């Protein structure tokens, strides 16, 4: 059975019906529990049923002919069909792209492949996802490297807010430069923002020509355009991204792009039975033991799904417009602000919760908890709440909200109403009469 042919006919029939984004898409293609509104797509993604079914088809192929699947070019043939499509989406050369389980695997692969020497420096920003400082700590213990963290402060008014601390950190580096690696988010997690990565890469290379630049694009693929050609010209040496987040491929999928100049030193997280010194870059990463490669294979079905819906412009156009509208609407309703301006907002945004800043710190904290907890318990709405320690020393509370093709304006209005209602049950003081147990 040619699954791709079957999927194509299914696509055709559904495309002709033109399922609108929002609730109809949610009900048709996704498997959320009834009544649940997922405003945290950025967290763990969501896999459309069509894509999961394609993955199941690959599992069936694997089980029908296990030896052929693993030893006779079975899954590799599928990968060779998917890779050029992924590469095209990233404006990259197919030969420079390999598959990953997720961005974390790619970050680990790059970080742990480098020939670290004691006192070498790794530059991160304070917005880096936890995996980076955690792996960095391991490198510190193992190799005696130093981590340099550039403090970026939010809310940010412009890209300059991000660039300045990094520039400062680079200027303070002693020469000769011992900065071996600089890592930046393409789209940061907390708070969510599109970072000026090309400019950051150029800044690093201008200061230290030998430093490698790694971009953590976990949130990028499917949310913002990725132009590897442009990024490579700016000095980016490696780029990792997730498949399960904004590409809506199954959990356990992602991609790594590496410039030809560093491919030779990069090793995957697992050295396999086929990995010897002469093994090529793609072969080293494409086979990492007998395991389940169907998530990687199903990235093709995720691309099919997106094409069926109208392509990247249609999807990213919808999600980013919805996020822009929702961010403004919620900030207006709360009397607060979004964490970055529209120009830096992809399809997820963070808006400050309507908690009076004159309240005591602990009362504000508790209120944030009441709201986040209440959203899920009372309203079956999932957001992520987080706090920001401002330069001034104040702590502010925000929620990170993702838009998606399975959400619509109505949903964000309901979310706004829910937050405002929950906020009413917060008290400015804790203890004594009229206090709220949270």
């Amino acid at each position: 059975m040619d699954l791709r042919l079957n999927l194509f006919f299914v696509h055709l029939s559904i495309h002709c019906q033109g399922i609108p984004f929002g609730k109809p898409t949610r009900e048709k293609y996704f498997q959320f529990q009834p009544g649940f509104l997922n405003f945290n797509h950025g967290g763990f993604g969501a896999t459309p049923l069509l894509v999961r079914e394609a993955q199941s088809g690959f599992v069936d192929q694997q089980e029908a002919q296990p030896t052929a699947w693993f030893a006779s070019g079975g899954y590799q043939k599928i990968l060779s069909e998917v890779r050029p499509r992924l590469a095209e989406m990233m404006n990259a050369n197919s030969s420079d792209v390999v598959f990953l389980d997720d961005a974390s695997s790619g970050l680990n692969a790059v970080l742990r492949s480098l020939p670290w020497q004691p006192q070498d420096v790794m530059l991160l920003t304070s917005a880096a996802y936890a995996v980076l400082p955690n792996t960095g700590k391991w490198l510190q213990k193992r190799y005696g490297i130093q981590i340099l963290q550039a403090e970026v402060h939010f809310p940010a008014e412009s890209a300059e807010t991000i660039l300045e601390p990094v520039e400062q950190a680079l200027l303070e580096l002693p020469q000769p430069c011992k900065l071996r690696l600089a890592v930046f988010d393409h789209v940061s997690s907390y708070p969510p923002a599109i970072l000026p990565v090309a400019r950051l890469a150029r800044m690093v290379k201008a200061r230290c020509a030998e430093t490698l630049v790694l971009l953590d694009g976990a949130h990028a693929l499917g949310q913002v355009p990725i132009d590897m050609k442009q990024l490579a010209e700016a000095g980016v040496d490696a780029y990792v991204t997730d498949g399960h987040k904004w590409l809506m491929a199954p959990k356990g999928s992602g991609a790594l792009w590496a410039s030809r100049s560093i491919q030779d030193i990069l090793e995957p997280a697992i050295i396999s039975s086929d990995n010897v010194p002469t093994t090529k870059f793609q072969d080293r990463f494409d086979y990492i033991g007998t395991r389940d490669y169907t998530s990687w294979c199903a990235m093709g079905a995720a691309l099919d799904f997106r094409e069926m819906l109208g392509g990247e412009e249609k999807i990213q156009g919808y999600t980013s417009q919805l996020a822009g509208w929702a961010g403004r609407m919620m900030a207006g309703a709360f009397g607060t602000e979004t964490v970055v301006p529209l120009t830096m907002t992809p399809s997820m945004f963070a808006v400050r919760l309507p908690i009076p800043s004159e309240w005591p710190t602990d009362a504000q904290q508790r209120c944030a908890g009441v709201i986040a907890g209440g959203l899920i318990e009372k309203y079956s709405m999932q957001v992520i709440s987080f706090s920001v320690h401002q330069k001034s020393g104040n702590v502010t509370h925000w929620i990170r909200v993702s838009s998606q093709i399975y959400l619509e304006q109505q949903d964000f209005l309901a979310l706004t109403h829910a937050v405002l209602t929950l906020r009413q049950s917060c008290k400015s003081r804790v203890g004594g009469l009229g206090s709220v147990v949270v």
Partner: protein
Amino acid sequence: MSSLRVFGRRAAFVMLAFPSFTASIEEAFGHPLLQHFALDMNYTNLNHGSYGATPIPVVKALRKWQEVMEHNPDRWFRFDGEKTLIGALDHVRSRVAEYIQADARDVVFVDGASGGVNAVLRSIKLPPHASILYLNTAYQMVKNTIFYINGQQQERSVEVNISLPSTASQILAAVRQALDQNPSTLLASFSHITSIPAVILPVKELVQICHEKNVMVLIDGAHALGQIALNIPEIGADFYVANGHKWLFSPKGSAILWVARHRQHLIHPNVINDEGRGSSFFQLQFSYTGTKDYSAFLAMSAALDFREQIGGDAQIKEYVSRLALEGGKYLAQTLGTEGPMISRGLAMVNVPLPQAALKCCDMNTAKRLLVKHGTFVPIYPWQGQCFVRVSAQVYNEISDFMYLARTLLDVLSNDCPEAADSASVQN
């Protein structure tokens, strides 16, 4: 987390999987069991040892977990208790730990033997001149990882040659001698069951002689889980890795890593994340290594259920080991060779081919077997002879070995005519 509810859910999966198994547990082994596997009708699987084969109810369980993951992803990944990854993992870990007679706190999941071996070997920071010892029979992945770790200092990779078949004392003597000659050895790796040829090594004794020299031991038990009786703590190694997808019947991507309590602080996963949860840092680190699909781990429970449903471990092992022996003998007889080489209790048998087959003793011949006759066995040279390694599983019968014999002779008659000729002369 209510254990009663968890049990209820597991029972529900079992019932869904076996609608016709309400009363009878007796089930004939052999071809009747093929109905519970999704193997292609045109593929005679005599290579279970390489890639396994996942029973249909286990694949169903895998899919069920994948669906649960989509209902409320945040709850699944970030919380503990009912309907969460951590809760479900805890439950499966207990069952699997019980199966290997270990403490659940010492068991974590990895995605395969390759993943487990890499996690151990690449975690341990050995002092600059320390050597790592392994046998010539080590699986290539283990060797490659050791080579990678030792980089420019390959004098630290100590390979010990053993011949197979050998007695346990011969193997132990060779290793003892190597340890004496390489006093800087701090880590040794041994297969519990070697790959090609497939043979059981005396791991308990190997651990003892290594520990006498303060050498830590990693056992690559890729083939052990579900094929032979396994009491991992009793073996006494420092680290033990075992695949689930081979002989346990769990899906690809399911395996376990057992680490002795006092060594756990040395080990971290291949992907450092540190955002999981657990009763110890060791458990925390391995419980979550990124947003991945952990359903294969969870389906190990369904694999254990399946084994019980088709007759239980003792019956399974009895059938497959007997078939491997009988089938191996038949094959050797038909091919006119001496043998087979087989360890008692193993479901894999190594059968020598006629001498003339050495000329085509490779993957190409095996692939031709696959393309032309829809079956496959590893074909490999060993100590001047060409062997095939045949796996016997609960869905195999002696007629499969007969089929292999015919088809092997056919392929040999094309590629290595003298080999086929000598076989028929013997007959």
